């Protein structure tokens, strides 16, 4: 009985003209989006490699560590092909300097505003918008359509348990829609393999999980269609109700939640934060300048009344000590500035995290948001991508600052030694460097932040659980509603 009903459901879907149309649209959209995504990924990899090489070349050609100002680049992630997330919105590079903070800049969208306006269509987008709509198109009349056509009455003139019928409706619709959809998805995966996208084992696992979450999200909409269809008598009514629900879940709630969170938790703007940091930095530099002038006045006071030779000796004898004092004072000030920046950034980050949590909590009322969050978490293109990279870049900056301080101190020492020798008729050089380029092989290397499968899955678990719960609730609702459904 169950198998007969499932088979009938499968046949009904596969033989319907709308199936051919939707299957063709889905196949074209999925394959096209992945193809374009692969090309974009490859272009960004080429750009990344060229920019990295140019930056390394600039470092290698520098003749003094004072002239070295490296840049680090965010390496494109193959998972961005399937779920771009915030990948195109955040910057691709940051200057690494002891003077300025790490800041990702030059995002794809800032370079190409046309794409920022219309965005890219990726696999997750197709699932979130197109497939969810198709699921509704196939299930809005699953129950009431049969009532309207009279086949429900004829079916129930036989000894068909209602539970079996509604379960077969779900299984049939699910199999009839999911299995054909897996074909273009698998073709897309094959396309990625053929086009040589360098996917690691972890990335394949993430992709498999992403497909699994997509199927779960699609299942929710199949269930929702079944639920509304078994709560209404007319298919026109269920279609309209489902369309309104779809618009709310997919288009309104995610955006409204973000807007509401923005109103509930205020976060200072980037300009405000930058100006706060700038003010502190300027204050400290001014104070440092004053202290230094004061110190020089005091130092010079010690040389008052001395002959020119005694004065020079006095200066030579104290130069290193004074330089050390100045250096210590400057380092102390820089530490203060860095600490202030850290505190301000941390406060900003905490506020942002708070706002983000409120937005996510509200947005998760919609399975579409839960899916989007899970998809971007799994792809590693979620909202924490920027923080993940900036943290790694800050860690690199710390290592780089320590390295460069040593190198520059060494250069200064050499320069001073040379300067002493020059006074006895030797050549004078400025800037501390020589003619030969610096040995960049000693420079610390930037380590890309790595995201394991477990760390990508962990933040997705809540969304997976929610999607599962929404789906089960819809099925339970459809089951109960159908037990009381008037089949006449």
């Amino acid at each position: 009985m169950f198998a007969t009903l499932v088979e009938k459901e499968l046949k009904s879907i596969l033989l319907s003209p709308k199936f051919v149309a939707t299957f063709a649209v889905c196949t074209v959209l999925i394959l096209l989006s992945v193809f374009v995504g692969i090309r974009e990924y490859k272009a960004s990899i080429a750009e990344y490699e060229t920019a990295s090489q140019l930056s390394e070349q600039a470092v290698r050609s520098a003749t003094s560590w004072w002239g070295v100002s490296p840049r680090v680049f965010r390496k494109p992630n193959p998972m961005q092909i399937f779920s771009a997330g915030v990948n195109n919105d955040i910057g691709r590079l940051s200057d690494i300097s002891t003077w300025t903070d790490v800041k990702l800049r030059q995002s794809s969208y800032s370079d190409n505003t046309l794409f920022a306006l219309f965005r890219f269509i990726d696999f997750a987008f197709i699932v979130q918008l197109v497939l969810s709509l198709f699921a509704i198109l196939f299930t809005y009349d699953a129950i009431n359509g049969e009532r309207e056509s009279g086949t429900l009455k004829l079916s129930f003139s036989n000894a068909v348990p209602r539970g079996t019928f509604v379960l077969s409706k779900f299984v049939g619709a699910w199999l009839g829609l999911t299995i054909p959809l897996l074909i273009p998805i698998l073709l897309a995966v094959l396309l990625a393999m053929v086009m040589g996208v360098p996917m690691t084992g972890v990335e394949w696992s993430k992709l498999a999980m992403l497909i699994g979450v997509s199927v779960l999200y699609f299942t929710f909409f199949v269930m929702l269609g079944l639920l509304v269809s078994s709560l209404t008598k007319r298919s026109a009514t269920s279609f309209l109700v489902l369309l309104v629900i779809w618009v709310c879940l997919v288009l309104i709630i995610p955006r409204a939640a973000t807007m509401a969170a923005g109103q509930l938790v205020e976060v200072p703007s980037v300009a405000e934060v930058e100006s706060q940091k700038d003010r502190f930095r300027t204050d400290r530099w001014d104070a440092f300048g004053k202290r230094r002038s004061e110190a020089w006045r005091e130092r010079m006071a010690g040389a008052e009344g001395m002959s020119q030779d005694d004065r020079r000796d006095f200066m030579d004898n104290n130069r290193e000590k004074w330089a050390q004092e100045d250096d210590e004072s400057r380092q102390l000030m820089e530490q203060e500035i860095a600490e202030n920046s850290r505190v301000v950034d941390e406060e900003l980050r905490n506020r942002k995290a708070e706002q983000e949590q409120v937005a996510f909590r509200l947005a998760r009322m919609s399975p579409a948001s839960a899916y989007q969050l899970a998809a971007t978490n799994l792809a590693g293109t979620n909202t924490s991508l920027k923080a993940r990279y900036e943290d790694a870049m800050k860690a690199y900056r710390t290592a780089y600052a320590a390295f460069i301080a040593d190198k520059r101190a060494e250069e200064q020492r050499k320069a001073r030694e040379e300067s002493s020798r020059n006074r006895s008729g030797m050549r004078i050089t400025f800037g501390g460097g020589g003619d030969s380029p610096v040995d960049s092989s000693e420079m610390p290397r930037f380590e890309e932040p790595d995201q394991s499968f477990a760390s990508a899955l962990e933040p997705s678990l809540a969304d997976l659980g929610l999607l599962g719960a929404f789906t089960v609730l819809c099925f339970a609702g459809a089951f109960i509603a159908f037990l009381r459904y008037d089949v006449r």
Partner: protein
Amino acid sequence: MELQSPSRALLEADNLTKRYEDGQLALDHVNFAVAAGEIYAMLGGNGAGKTTTINLFLNFIEPTEGEARVDGIVTHRDPLAAKKKLAYVSENVMLYPNFTALQNLDFFARLGGRTDYSKDAYRDVLLRVGLQEEAHGRRLKGFSKGMRQKCGIAIAILKDAPAILLDEPTSGLDPKAAYEFIGLLDSLRGEGKAILMSTHDIFRARDVANTIGIMNQGKLVMQRSKQDLAGEDLEKVYVEYMAGYMDRETETV
């Protein structure tokens, strides 16, 4: 107005009453029985309660009072067991439009618990109900109402249930098809089926039924055997009963 059936009653309405939630009394203490090898024709205007009676036998609705029984099984107590003994043809047979006639037959036969039929068996039944062979493999969406009706009758035959419920079965059939259908009913009666048929067609009811019941405003106002009606003008009887009953109702009011 109880009738003695010559053999075992397969379809029984016992004080069958249905009052809807809005207070409307759709069926008022109706009693009748249809024995194996018998055709019972329910006549009556629109809203007389004919379809409500059939819906109660199919347990699409539950009775407010009394019970409908199929081979002794109370339909609202054990609907699944009762439905195993019932086949049904609706007034306007609607099947799956994207399936062929054979595919529709196969699905509903299996749903009725018959998995032992071959394609040839389906073709034979379709030919028996008068559906031409060229239409067997065609999708239902191009079928006329009469062709769909024939498929519906074929589905009922395939189920091979002891009792058959027919709700306006000749509606939409051309005169030739309706005539052939009556012949088909006769042969099903010969196979020992108990047939309950609701119809507006007085003449065909007189031709084929063993017993004729006239329903009006949820009540079974007349119930007579074919022998009792012999020599009488059924149309006149029908009009008289309907009018007389209405007069009585008016007097009561």
